[in-house]
């Protein structure tokens, strides 16, 4: 019995050093470590992982802790986002201190240098029992170059905190796959030719993706085609490469994205209906898989940062299905939309009827493109000859707290392919309630029933 206890203890210690309320990830010696930030949680130093667009400190904690940060570059002013968390910091020289609760994802930005934030992810530990029956276990302190792992039904992947995996996990026509852990999939050294989606599910049901980090993926970071009944929870994505969409839900139903952090160059969360390509292991053709209706999607409690291209929350451009409907985006924080992207975007580029979309309790901080960018169009991504429609889209309790007063574009295609029913309820921009499309600077063509309701 003592041996078992010792084994379990060692297993636990190996993955992350337990120091009071904080578990410190044990990265390999040759991991990318940032030189311009240091971070201590409850006095214990946490190595700060480096990426070209952000430094990142990710660790487990069981209760609220005191954070101390050292920045190599001196600073005068601090933004800690999402701002509604109201984290008060104390600044002394090149040090900053503040307290965080558990299960938090924040961006610490010094002197508005949003090109070099320190991202802090503090989460509760994952139940250690999850490791035991993992089919693929990646332990801490190592870089695992795995290529593409193809999972079968009922298989589980566990990536320990402190483990770094280079490669991808794909699953086709499976049930009950699970990918879990607080480790990192870091694909920055892969190219578009050598890399692929970090996680890809096709025609699969009842799967769960939880806790992992995916960094620097050379293509869409994660994508799910024609899947059903799945959840993406507490995932952290940092991307800076072209076409690196964070999470793509394609022709799928009954899915959720919760408690995640997405900072990518292209679309952060994209909902589409389009093919999944060819599966090159068995040459099976999935080129039409994913051209299916999308239904029952819930996206909640996420922190979203859209950088150079794409949009924060996107439906489209590929809408090759009859219906894309019943989607709820609620209680999300949009902390940055850096360029021309929109916060809420629907680019209906194919034949789909997009309807019953609810955006609710969304807090927008620094967005620089558009609030809404709803279009029906024949785009360079379009394949259907028939154009689609949009109906019953509601935006409720939306606040824009800083930056430029955002404009919106709502344009259909022609008299028969229109947006019918875009409802704003309690839109607050810079503290003022907006009560008309004109006041909100909504430019519309081929659209009707754009209303502000009480």
């Amino acid at each position, binding site marked *: 019995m003592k041996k078992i206890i010792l084994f379990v203890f060692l297993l636990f210690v190996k993955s992350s050093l337990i120091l009071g309320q904080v578990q410190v990830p044990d990265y390999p010696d040759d991991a990318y470590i940032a030189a311009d930030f240091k971070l201590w949680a409850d006095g214990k130093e946490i190595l700060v992982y480096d990426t070209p667009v952000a430094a990142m400190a990710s660790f487990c904690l069981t209760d609220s802790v005191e954070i101390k940060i050292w920045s190599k570059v001196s600073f005068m002013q601090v933004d800690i986002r999402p701002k509604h968390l109201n984290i008060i910091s104390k600044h002394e020289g090149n040090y900053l201190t503040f307290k965080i609760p558990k299960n938090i994802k924040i961006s610490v930005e010094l002197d508005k240098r949003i090109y070099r934030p320190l991202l802090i992810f503090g989460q509760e530990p994952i139940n250690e029992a999850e490791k035991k029956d993992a089919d693929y276990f990646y332990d801490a302190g190592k870089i695992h170059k795995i290529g593409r792992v193809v999972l079968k039904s009922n298989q589980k992947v566990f990536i320990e905190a402190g483990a770094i995996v280079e490669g991808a996990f794909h699953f086709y026509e499976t049930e009950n796959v699970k990918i879990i852990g607080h480790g990192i999939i870091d694909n920055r050294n892969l190219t578009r030719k050598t890399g692929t989606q970090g996680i890809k599910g096709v025609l699969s049901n009842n799967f769960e993706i939880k806790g992992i980090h995916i960094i620097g993926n050379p293509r869409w970071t994660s994508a799910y085609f024609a899947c059903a009944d799945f959840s993406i929870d507490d995932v952290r994505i940092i991307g800076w490469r072209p076409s690196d969409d964070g999470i793509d839900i394609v022709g799928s139903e009954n899915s959720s994205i919760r408690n995640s952090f997405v900072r990518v160059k292209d679309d952060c969360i994209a909902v589409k209906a389009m093919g999944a390509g060819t599966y090159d292991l068995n040459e099976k053709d999935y080129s039409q898989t994913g051209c299916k209706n999308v239904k029952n999607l819930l996206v909640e409690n996420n922190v979203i940062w859209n950088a150079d291209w794409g949009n924060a929350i996107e439906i489209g451009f590929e809408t090759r299905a009859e219906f894309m409907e019943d989607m709820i985006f609620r209680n999300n924080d949009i902390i940055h939309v850096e*360029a021309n992207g929109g916060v809420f975007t629907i680019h209906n580029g194919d034949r789909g009827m997009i309807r019953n979309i609810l955006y609710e309790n969304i807090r927008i901080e620094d967005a620089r493109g558009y609030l809404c960018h709803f279009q029906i169009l024949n785009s360079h991504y379009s394949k259907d000859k028939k154009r689609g429609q949009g109906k019953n889209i509601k935006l409720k309790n939306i606040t824009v707290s800083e930056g430029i007063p955002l*404009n919106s574009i709502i344009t259909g295609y022609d008299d028969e392919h229109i947006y019918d029913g875009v409802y704003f309820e309690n839109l607050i921009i810079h503290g003022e309630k907006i009560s*008309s499309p004109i006041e909100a600077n909504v430019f519309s063509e081929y659209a009707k029933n754009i209303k502000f309701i009480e």
Partner: protein
Amino acid sequence: MNRKKIILLILFMVFVFGFSNTNNLKLEDVKYSDYYSVEVNGTRIPLYYSQVAPIAVFTIKDEAKIDVSWNQQITKVEILPEHLGIKYKVNGNSVELNLKGAAKFYVKLNDNYVYPLVIIAHNKKDWGINKNDPNVKVFESDKVYNAGEIILNSNETIFIEEGAYVKGSIKAEDAKNIKVLGYGILEGTMYLQESETEAILIKNCKGVKLEGITSIDAAWGNLILENSDNISIADFNAFGSREKRMNDDGLDIVASKNVTVDNVFLNLRNNNIAIQANGTEKSFVTNVTVKNSVFWKGDYGNVFEFGYKTDGLAAENVTYKNLDVLHTLACGVFSFASKSGVAKNFTFENIRIEDARFKLFEINLNGKNAKLCNVKFKDIQLSKSLMPYSDFLENEGEIKNLIIENFTVNNVKVTDKVEAHFRTSEKVIIK
């Protein structure tokens, strides 16, 4: 060929010519915008529709009173560029402006950057056109032409009068001493993007004068100069696409030399001005001056671009001066994106930037032959803007003597690279 066949051929040509070059459309076939209402000295004028802004084009003698009405209470007015100092008075849903002469500017109301109003007020001008000259192709005022491709040969002039609306494109190839003049409209909606039809293509030409034309909704680039020499462009205006066209560049200077660009007014989705290679092993761009102009860019490309087509390109002696960049949603203001091109002796001077939301400098040399040498940015003023950031990525290329002198943000001089939000800037000298 017997006489009968010759007569039939002539009749056929007259038939074709008649339908392709004369006015077979009516003014109702022009798309106008009623988003705003504009009166000039008490007379309402039509606003030409474009995807990015409704456009008022008219001529004035000396002074003019402009009344702009909107369908809502006006709470904020911006006349851009601001330094024009145009005075205005707000009265409920309308704004009164007083012009003291020719001017081109935006009227931006209540922070509406999606669809601001454009005013292009020209001075009356005697173009010295002899309409009976067989070398002059005239498109007359108050007529709409379904012209299609208009070919411009050596020693010919195309004159598009103020009030003329020409649906089509202009192409000159291997021509000398050519002119495109007039305050009329050239509009490209008849072309699909896939046709890659430029509004105006000047290729292998020498001695080109282009003045006064306004181009709307070009399918693929508004004004392309390729392998051409001795070109004068003045008072050219272009309004591009919000969604339909991806490649609506304003002015592409492709392997051309001795180019002067003065008083242009561009609002495009993609590059406003791009210097590019022509795809051959070696191409040269030399002696280019762009001055006294106004720029507005949407979601693709850059305002001032060197690239992306740079294979074999050597560009030198390029000057941009006294320019206003009013709005750029994405990408950069100053961009050098080069795999193997060499840019030498570039000067950007007295550039006022009012709203740059993403990047200011976007320099990315992606190949060992890519070089930037003697590039000077002087008196760069950034105002009313979120602080954009900048990249100067040398990679395998070489940046030599890149100087930024007198860079101000909201009238405060910035000499510290961190404060300037320069992310990567080892080779940049800022003073």
